[in-house]
């Protein structure tokens, strides 16, 4: 029963990671840009949602304000800075987006102060439901899982079934050819970047009621997001989905069961320490194992 509950928790973390990694891997796959500042848009989403929700009392209003805010911030960054770095080395992109992290973290400290904000779960999503006899699970976490599945479906339809999706995929393969066919590729890139940061903002909004909203909150999830896209195969949205669920489940299960596992052959305090240490390292060990076998990730994108 506990196992089932933890599996759902892992799935919920996986869904959040998918929202983050879908945007990041899109941007990397299409524009070849390493964006370390992706977590900043997650943070912007969370802060705007928390502020608007606090003042209006409505979570929906908070969500509706946060999504365009994250998308807009993303598009401004793309227009002003990243656009100039498409043809540069990954190293230049790392340095510039590292500067962006400094800037955004400190900016939120100036605007909102150093104290974290706390967001409540909206009343209509509070409480829990009995999924199986004896297993109660919070509605809010189920809602997160549902949103993640909907977004995955939306992205699939966008890429596989629409004209815009076709242009995006074509643009990734041959930028010049698509531009020659009369598609405004610069605008397309800005829009894709905005879509990616919007998804990061969405993840931030949903994380708000679960975690503390504070400056630097983007970095802890950012690293996990990178682990996800590297495991999944950089540039592959399908890989991001599979990688995110794998990482979410591995992380959650390791944290809840490794200490118990070690208790089988160690005394309890040593087992707790070893278990906790290995649990926080588990996703990185998992990643190293996968890359040892498949250096390009599970779903490599051919280029």
């Amino acid at each position, binding site marked *: 029963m506990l196992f089932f509950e933890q599996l759902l928790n892992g799935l919920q973390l996986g869904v959040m990671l998918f929202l983050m990694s879908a945007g990041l891997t899109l941007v*990397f796959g299409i524009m070849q840009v390493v964006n370390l500042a992706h977590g900043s848009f997650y943070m912007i989403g969370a802060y705007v949602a928390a502020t608007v929700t606090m003042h209006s009392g409505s979570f929906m209003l908070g969500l509706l304000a946060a999504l365009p805010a994250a998308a807009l911030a993303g598009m401004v960054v793309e227009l002003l800075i990243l656009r100039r770095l498409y043809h540069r080395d*990954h190293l230049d992109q790392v340095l510039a987006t590292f500067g962006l992290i400094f800037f955004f973290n*400190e900016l939120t400290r*100036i605007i909102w102060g150093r104290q974290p904000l706390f967001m409540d779960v909206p009343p209509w999503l509070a409480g829990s439901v009995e999924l199986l006899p004896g297993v109660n699970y919070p509605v809010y976490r189920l809602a997160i899982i549902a949103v993640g599945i909907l977004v995955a479906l939306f992205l699939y339809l966008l890429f596989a079934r629409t004209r815009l999706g076709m242009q995006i995929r074509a643009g990734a393969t041959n930028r010049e050819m698509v531009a020659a066919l009369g598609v405004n590729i610069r605008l397309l890139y800005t829009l894709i970047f905005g879509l990616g940061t919007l998804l990061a903002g969405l993840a931030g909004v949903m994380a708000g009621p679960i975690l503390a909203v504070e400056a630097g909150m983007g970095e802890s999830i950012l*690293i996990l997001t*990178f682990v996800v896209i590297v495991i999944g195969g950089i540039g592959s949205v399908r890989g991001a989905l599979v990688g995110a669920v794998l990482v979410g489940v591995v992380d959650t299960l390791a944290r809840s069961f490794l200490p118990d596992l070690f208790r089988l052959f160690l005394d309890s305090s040593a087992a707790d320490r070893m278990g906790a240490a290995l649990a926080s390292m588990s996703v990185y060990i998992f990643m190293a194992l996968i890359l*040892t076998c498949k250096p390009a990730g599970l779903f490599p994108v051919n280029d």
Partner: protein
Amino acid sequence: MATILVFGLLLTLPWLLDLIDQQYLLSLATRVLIYGLAASSLNLILGYGGMVSLGHAAFTGIGGYTVAILAFHSYEKTPILGWLPWLQGTENGLVAWPLAMALAALFGLITGAISLRTKGMHFIMITLAFAQMVYFFFTSLDTYGGSDGLALYGRNQLPVLDLGSDRNFYFLCLGILLTFLYLTYRLVHARFGRVLIGSRENEQRLQVLGYATFGYRLFSYCLAGAAAGLAGALLVNQGEFVSPGLIHWTRSGEIMVMVLLGGMGTLTGPVLGAAALLLLEEYLAMYTEHWMVILGPFLILVVLFARGGLHGLLFGQKEGS
């Protein structure tokens, strides 16, 4: 001429600071030298070898913790790890520092053997992942302070030199940095360096020529790790404190920023970068607590408009390497 001037300045700095009554700046200068060493070691693999490692702080962390843990057991008179009675702690730098370098190099050997199989973005991420493992490993060691870190009672001991004196410590760091720069210079101008630089430009071609490039790259990765481990050992000696913060990924990013800011692939660039970043932090922090809001855009401007870093700005184009 400029070189002699800089040498003169570095050698007389403690007395110059006495003269203008700013002795507290000596510890800042020492930190610049130590971070200069860390950045130069990253430059060896990043600038010359083209290996974009975003996990370099792991090496400094391993070096720093080696020194701190040995000192801890020396005060406590307990065996290391609690179960090796013949393994005692020590405050002797001649034991602790080589061990710090050896452990960092060993970590480099194991992780490098896996990481160097990957390329580009994957290499960036896998080095980051290994550093995160080290970060969480030390965070979980409650005996050594966990996430709060571990304070030392004093610096390591060396046979002749009293490291308790900040001035002595400054000269030691200066000597080590200059030695490392000299070694790097000799290395990149020898056949070894040619192969390393060549494998940055076109690894396949070198392999066709019959060079086992993997071995060269792995060796330089371990060498850089050992030097960064020594930098970590010095850093912990300087501050008499170690914490997992030393290994946080933003710290790796900062070391990388130093290399790029100063000019990668140049001998003195990384040291310039370390000096620039640390001085800028110190200077901006005097004016506002929100100095990062200025530093961030500054870094972006450097990327956009000052390619080749400070070294490029000061001395024109890159050194022929």
